[in-house]
């Protein structure tokens, strides 16, 4: 146990300086998560809220449903499908973000030093507008009578509008657009620390452009790519607005499912349980990744 009176002056200063951030993390992260964790093991109240009775029903409900007549538990994949869809959507969004974000970050990192901050600034401009407004704007662009379809029809490339709005692809597109800067910024940071003369060295040692990219550039900035992918993937998977608006409520994702439990269904413990399951899956994935990365470095 930490004994405040036995600390040296240096240690007191150190703990003093980190205490505000520790308090922030404690109040706004640990306590809310603990509440969610506790709620997931309780029973739902009739009008929302919880009854303080221990129960594993919330977790059972995730995989099984009670047969109305026989009251037997039957396996159901409905919620697993939502999880699967969420992972797939988030993966597609991450891939799109990488494919667009990496060249963008490379472009910015190779501009003259004094213009780089200007380009970064330009990247962030659209994000001054609220996410909800941007997502609705995107819906207007891609809908059947939207400017995208009108333009393609004007070019005679298509005869009838392509159905884009309210499809899984629209959700991916929305997620991609929501989180693109989170991919660009860490990759840019890694690239700006990368010594471009290493590409010249690779070129000198018989590497084609593609080989230099694959063998030198990408491995050197892998930390940035890794960070970018996490920063896009994790918020994407729990995203709420894009699937709700662009998927037209048909493409339910985990975020919507959780929201539904707290609002419409008034089943707080089940919502809390889903949140805890998602959190656990993500933490395990991260742990595996970081262990593998450590293994590679040794």
């Amino acid at each position, binding site marked *: 146990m930490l004994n405040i009176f036995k600390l040296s002056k240096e240690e007191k200063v150190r703990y003093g300086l980190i205490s505000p951030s520790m308090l922030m993390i404690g109040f706004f992260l640990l306590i809310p998560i603990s509440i969610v964790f506790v709620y997931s093991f309780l029973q739902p109240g009739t009008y929302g809220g919880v009854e303080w009775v221990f129960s594993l029903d919330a977790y059972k409900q995730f995989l099984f449903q009670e047969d109305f007549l026989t009251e037997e538990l039957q396996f159901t994949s409905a919620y697993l499908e939502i999880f699967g869809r969420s992972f797939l959507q988030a993966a597609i969004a991450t891939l799109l973000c990488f494919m667009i974000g990496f060249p963008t970050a490379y472009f910015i990192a190779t501009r003259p030093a004094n213009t780089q901050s200007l380009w970064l600034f330009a990247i962030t401009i659209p994000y001054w507008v609220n996410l909800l407004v941007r997502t609705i704007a995107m819906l207007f662009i891609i809908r059947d009578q939207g400017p995208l379809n009108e333009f393609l029809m004007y070019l005679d490339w298509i005869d009838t509008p392509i159905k884009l709005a309210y499809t899984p692809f629209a959700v991916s597109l929305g997620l991609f657009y929501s989180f693109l800067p989170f991919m660009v910024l860490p990759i840019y940071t890694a690239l700006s620390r990368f010594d471009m003369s290493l590409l*010249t*060295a690779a070129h*000198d*040692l018989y590497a084609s452009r593609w080989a230099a990219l694959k063998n030198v550039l990408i491995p050197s900035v892998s930390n940035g790519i890794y960070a970018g992918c996490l920063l896009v993937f994790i918020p994407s998977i729990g995203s709420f607005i894009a699937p709700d608006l662009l998927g037209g409520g048909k493409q339910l994702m985990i975020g919507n499912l959780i929201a539904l439990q707290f609002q419409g269904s008034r089943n707080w413990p089940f919502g809390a349980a889903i949140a805890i399951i998602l959190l656990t899956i993500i933490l395990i994935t991260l742990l595996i990744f970081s262990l593998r990365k450590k293994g590679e470095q040794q």
Partner: protein
Amino acid sequence: MTTAISLKSVTKKFKDFQALNEISFDIQEGEFFTLLGPSGCGKTTLLRLLGGFEQTSTGVIELFDEKIENLPANKRPINTVFQHYSLFPHLTVHENVQFGLKMQGVAKAERVKRADEMLALVQLEKFADRKPNQLSGGQQQRVALARALAPRPKLLLLDEPLSALDLKLRQNMRLELKKIQQQTGITFVFVTHDQEEALTMSDRIAVMSAGHLQQLGTPSEIYEEPVNEFVADFIGETNLLNVNVLKKGEHSADVTIQAYDTEHHDSAVIQVPYFNRLFLGPTAKLSIRPERITIGPLTGETPLTAIVEQSIYMGTDTQYIVTLNTGCELLIRSQNITSEKKTFEQGDKVNISFDLSTARLIRG
């Protein structure tokens, strides 16, 4: 002897700036060839043209009689040791050395064997599994050398590779580089602004200035027979005295050392050798190396008397700055052969003499 590299009227222009002007010369196979010049003289640009990192504006570059000026860097059998090493930080030393072979598609077993050989050559076998950032500057330098040598290039380019090392290490690496060059028999093109480096290591030196080739020759030719004022001044230290050419012979000319101002008088007529074109009149300069001048006590009538302005003890030598009776300053270096203290002090009147055959007349 076979010609390894042949440059024919190579020119390089960057927008309005003429970096290289009609450069033509040949480098022989197995030669240690140095491009020497001050920064901005075009030596690095020339190296980058050879490596394929820049395109020639006009002119032809041939590598063993094959035109290569339009080949990209990765298609040229030429490797480079970069100034700041440019080792791949995410790869181990061994993987760095293997890199070129891997890109050439050499099988893994062969790759490992050759990388081992190269690391043995630079005496870094023990460090094979380290990352570059765990090595000292000198060790990184050797890894860069091993990496560039591993694919057995037809030509090795070295871009001021020793400039980032400290003095002692630099002197050791000079000897080692020369030894490795002789062991491998690979043609080296070495770029430096350090004349001492150039003189100690090279078979031949190309002195460059402002995008022009000034002189090409062996170290002793460059030092002993500079063709112009730039070369004489850049290579080693020298005294350049304005002279009046009175009479031209076949290999030597009669000259007087010109007075610095009207208060003084021209010196007596002296006869000195020359090696290139010369015109009569006050058109030439006399180059005398500081170590070729003898300084002695004043004894009666002599053609050159001087007053000591400054006397600096430098360990192996003592350096004097004296003013001649014609008003011009001379730098003199005399070896401290005995352990006696310096012989002349500021204000001493001294007698200056030099072997006329060691002085050089050059166009001013």
